[in-house]
């Protein structure tokens, strides 16, 4: 398909060239109709000094143009390109050295930081351990103190309760004695008194 397209384009181009050629011939012959006359085929005269002179001048003008607009700028550009590439390579080398140095510095810093971090962690662990032990000891001490205090309080309360109980018992005994001594009582009164005593004593004891 692509080859066919190229072939068609080539034929079209050739036809165009031929048609343009004919048009040019027709124009050159002052509008005379084609077909054209047969070629003369004679060779041009040799040694035309004007042609030689003009051609030499023209060639040196061309040489000047090629030098001025071809070799000159291109050589300058090549030199500039060479300088740019050399500069870039040099810069890249410098950057490479710098990066290598930075990498070494970073590695050293990292190692130092790691060491410092380990030391810090060690110190912190030790401090935490000490704090823990201190707290534990303090807590133990406090708990012991609290327990002792509580025991003492309990003992004090118990002793006071005993004292109070004894005092109450004495009071009750005195009260009971007062009751007994204050009037003559029969059996029924005695029973009532005992019941009343028990009821009152119960209120006091509770």
């Amino acid at each position, binding site marked *: 398909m692509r080859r066919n397209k190229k072939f068609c384009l080539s*034929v079209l181009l*050739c*036809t165009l*060239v*031929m*048609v*343009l*050629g*004919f*048009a*040019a*011939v027709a*124009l*050159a*012959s002052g509008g005379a109709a*084609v*077909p*054209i*006359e*047969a*070629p*003369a*085929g*004679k*060779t*041009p*005269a*040799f*040694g*035309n000094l*004007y*042609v*030689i002179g*003009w*051609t*030499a001048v*023209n*060639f040196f*003008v*061309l*040489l000047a*143009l*090629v*030098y001025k*607009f*071809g*070799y000159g*700028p*291109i050589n300058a*550009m090549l030199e*500039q*390109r060479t300088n*740019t590439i050399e500069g870039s390579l040099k810069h890249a080398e410098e950057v490479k050295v710098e990066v290598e140095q930075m990498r070494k510095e970073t590695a050293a810093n990292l190692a130092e930081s790691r060491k410092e971090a380990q030391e810090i962690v060690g110190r912190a662990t030790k401090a935490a351990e000490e704090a823990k032990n201190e707290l534990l000891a303090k807590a133990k001490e406090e708990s012991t103190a609290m327990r002792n205090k509580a025991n003492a309080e309990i003992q004090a309360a118990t002793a006071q309760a005993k004292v109070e109980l004894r005092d109450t018992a004495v009071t009750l005994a005195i009260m009971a004695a007062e009751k007994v001594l204050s009037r003559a009582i029969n059996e029924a009164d005695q029973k009532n008194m005992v019941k009343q005593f028990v009821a009152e004593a119960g209120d006091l004891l509770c």
Partner: protein
Amino acid sequence: MIFGMWDGVLFHLGPIPVDHLIVTEWVVIAFIGLIAMSATKNMQIVPRGLQNGFEAMILWTYDFFTQLMDEEHVAKKWAPILTSFFLFILISNYSGLIPGAAHIQGFQPPTSNWNVTMTLALITFFSIHVAGFSEHGGHYLHHFVSPSWAMLPLNLVEEVAHPLSLTVRLFGNIFGEETVVAYLLFMAPFLVPSAMMGLGLLLGAIQAIVFTILSASYIAAAAGAGH
């Protein structure tokens, strides 16, 4: 007007007559100059477009001559003139393929005239000896009598044969090709000459390369260590 008929003056520039093909030479030179100017007008470090193509062409010719001439300083010195030969001959040869070539007054392929090819060959001839003298000084004359005085006539013939062969080869090929196309155009106007014109594309490039290579090798031989 048929090919070969305009071997004469088209107009006068003051007292100096200007032939038909000189006008084409001007157009060829203007074309090359314009391309070169456009390509190198705003040159960039990273080449693009026309600059890229023109740079590639100039560098290709420069590398080509450097390889051909062995010595870089000689190649560097003579590369512009050789590139000018190549471009001038190539564009001149191809100008004959443009419709109307040799049919419109003032438009005639310059390299189909042997005055033009002889001028180019003479420039090569002088370049050879300038290169020889500039590289070896007076010692360059020894090569005319090398390896012995008996060879002087043959060496002189060889020196004359160089420009003569360059003249006749380029002229003969381009003139012959143009004549054949003209005959074919007369006999079978449509399509048939296209094949010959296609060959003309190849022939034009080959002749430009051959002329330039031979010039470069002659200059290299004169400037080389052999002398």
